[in-house]
């Protein structure tokens, strides 16, 4: 152990620039993560809100996208719940990830489960509470099948989108972008 420690304090090697910068940003975020968490959630809520413009339940039919949603609704409750949840959460995360810095994203990625699962669950319960205020109260949106499919799809989509963004960032880091 003594030799090992001596080796540690006497030898040094330059850290690659990309890694050096990325890690410095990551540890800064780790020191004060509240701002990053707030930013992550706020941007996600904004993105989710934007997706409601093309939602037949809460949205504004005048924007002209309802045709796709009508078609999806005809396909049944499963397809409808998967479509709704995917657009809602992927839209939210897309807006969020666009505006996060690399260090912030890395920190989010490390804590993804503890951030995504409670957030999606809270959003789910809020959506349940506001169901009656929706513009269109179709019976399709009120069954357990819809709710369960919707919440599980939300976890899955959030994790997939996060993994894809991570893969993309790793790929770009390797070519020095």
């Amino acid at each position: 152990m003594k030799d090992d420690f001596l080796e540690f304090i006497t030898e040094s090697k330059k850290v690659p620039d990309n890694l050096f910068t990325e890690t410095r940003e990551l540890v800064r975020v780790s020191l004060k993560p509240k701002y990053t968490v707030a930013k992550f959630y706020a941007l996600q809520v904004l993105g989710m809100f934007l997706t409601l413009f093309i939602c037949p339940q809460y949205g504004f039919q005048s924007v002209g996208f309802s045709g796709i949603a009508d078609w999806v609704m005809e396909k049944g409750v499963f397809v409808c719940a998967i479509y709704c949840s995917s657009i809602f959460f992927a839209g939210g995360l897309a807006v969020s990830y666009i505006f996060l810095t690399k260090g912030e994203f890395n920190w989010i990625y490390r804590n993804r489960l503890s951030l995504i699962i409670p957030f999606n669950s809270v959003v789910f319960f809020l959506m349940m509470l506001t169901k009656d205020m929706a513009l269109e109260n179709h019976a399709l949106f009120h069954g357990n099948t819809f709710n369960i499919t919707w919440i599980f799809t939300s976890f899955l989509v959030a994790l997939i989108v996060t993994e894809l963004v991570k893969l993309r960032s790793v790929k770009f880091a390797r070519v020095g972008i």
Partner: protein
Amino acid sequence: MSTNQQSDEELMHLLKLGDDLALSVLYERHSSKVWSYLKRRVPDSNAEDLFQDCFVKVVEKRDAWNGQPFVLWLYVVMRNTVSDYFRSKKVESKYLNFLEDRSEERESKALQVEELLGVLPNDKAQLLREFFSEGWSYKELADKYDMSEISLRKRLSRTIKKIKKEL
């Protein structure tokens, strides 16, 4: 005194209060040592992850630092990070070995079954193949061999028992 001239331990006190400048200075001072150590012990792609893990742990566990020399504490944090990595690798490799053994075991069993089918009387071997490999149902087989479903089940069960005994 500027942050750059302060000792590591003074910087750690500041870091415990949430000073990010102290964190930057500590990081700049010691990152190359950590990198050098990791590079010699773990593969490149893992070294990058462990390097980040190590400094994130320094931040997250800063309250556990109780005044000992910072370099020694950093060394312990890093060693633990590396140990955790090798422990997880060991578990992973044990699991992979287990899967490999299982697949070898399955392959050898399948070969043994084929050999036994060769030894069985033709009609019994044929019956087993049709049931397990070709997916015929009890009813279909009972119709084909012109016997009741109960008799067919008994015959299959006896043949399987015989094979199990041989295996």
